[in-house]
């Protein structure tokens, strides 16, 4: 956790903050890793259907150990369950849901997000890295609303919200909202607008750890 420790929202609090903004009836794809936490915080009374790109609509919670099924997994290849009303389908149908604009919201992690909503989250571009993209480029182009769930800075304190991404892009101008341990930020044509700051975070501090211009809605 490094420099971010004890300041701003915890990972679970960010997940809960995102979940609070997901409307009843939404079809949602959660990226591998941190975004998976969002499923734990959907407010009671809301019905949200989770999609996993390996072919399941209606992803349920993790199974008890004795109920683990190697052929019932999520995109992160972790065991899941299927809720009553779930359905299975093949990969081309699954990505028709993604690429055809049928999924409402996707929550993804990020290496960097730019002021114009460019996302870099699949490769650090290091020469020794094995390139792997999975479904990230399909999701950012096809899903109606892309939400980024990330720590505000890297472990060494570098801003992850930047003027323009230095890592290879996943997609250009694709991110709508950024939820970090410090703030909720909306990506608009006119720039990055801070919708909310975590308790104990002020605007000057937020500016100091953000690599792109940010604005308050009031101004």
């Amino acid at each position: 956790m490094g420099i971010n420790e004890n300041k701003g929202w915890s990972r679970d609090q960010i997940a809960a903050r995102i979940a609070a903004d997901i409307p009843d009836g939404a079809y949602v794809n959660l990226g591998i890793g941190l975004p998976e936490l969002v499923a734990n915080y959907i407010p009671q009374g809301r019905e949200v259907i989770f999609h996993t790109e390996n072919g399941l609509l209606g992803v349920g919670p993790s199974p008890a150990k004795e109920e683990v099924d190697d052929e019932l997994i999520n995109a992160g290849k972790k065991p899941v369950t299927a809720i009553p009303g779930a359905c299975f389908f093949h990969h081309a149908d699954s990505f028709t849901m993604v690429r055809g604009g049928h999924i409402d919201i996707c929550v993804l992690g990020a290496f960097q997000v730019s002021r114009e909503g460019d996302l870099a989250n699949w490769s650090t571009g290091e020469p020794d890295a094995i390139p792997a993209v999975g479904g990230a480029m399909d999701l950012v182009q096809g899903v109606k609303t892309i939400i980024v769930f990330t720590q505000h800075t890297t472990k060494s304190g570098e801003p992850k919200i930047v003027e323009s991404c230095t890592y290879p892009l996943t997609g250009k101008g694709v991110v709508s909202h950024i939820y970090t341990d410090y703030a909720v930020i909306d990506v608009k044509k006119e720039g990055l607008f801070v919708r909310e700051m975590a308790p104990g975070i002020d605007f000057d501090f937020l500016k100091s750890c953000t690599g792109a211009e940010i604005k308050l809605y009031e101004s």
Partner: protein
Amino acid sequence: MINKIVGTAAEAVAEIFDGATVMISGFGEAGSPIELIHALIDHGARDLTIVSNNTGNGHIGLAALIENKQVKKMICSFPRTANSVVFPELYRRGEIELELVPQGTLAERIRAGGAGVPAFYTPTSVNTPLAEGKETRIFNGKPYVMEYGLKADFALVKCKIADRYGNLLYNKTARNFGPVMCMGASRSIVQASQVVELGMLDPETVVTPGIFVSKVVEISNPLSENQLIKENRRYPWA
């Protein structure tokens, strides 16, 4: 009489030739036809181009096929996973080629190949390194990348239930690439956990129509990759 059932995995893969393009179903372990892959290792066909979402785990299944130097090129979306050790090593040494394809584009290319569509346009990968060198075109003011349909000589696919016509049902998220790969390959070779009599499958629920399937072998208790990896097993068995 149509009977696509064959007796053994060895018989099922016997026709695969050197230099063939082979689609292999599975998303990680789920849906990976491990017995057919092991039969292909025994068979020994070389210089294969393999189309599969991942590159296999540990030293069994697809990873073992790669380790046995039978694969010249991988076409996949996610070549590294937690248990993927074989591919990264060969790739870093420059001993295997990689064509990296976004997962949805991979599925769509296979479907297009199976449907006789030579190429299509998609916004996926526009403005990224994966679109470099590809034709782009503007539709309604938005840029799209041209991607080619993908065909294969063979597909190796795992399913749950089959009949002798080759009609298939799958199991949960092990379905993944199976149905499109059966369509995208000239010859689809399937391992089924169970083979049933004609008429036992409800025609309303058949997932892969038998016309897309060439051969079926019954493997009633397929090996678990997870279990083999826990036991640190290698194929060929030591």
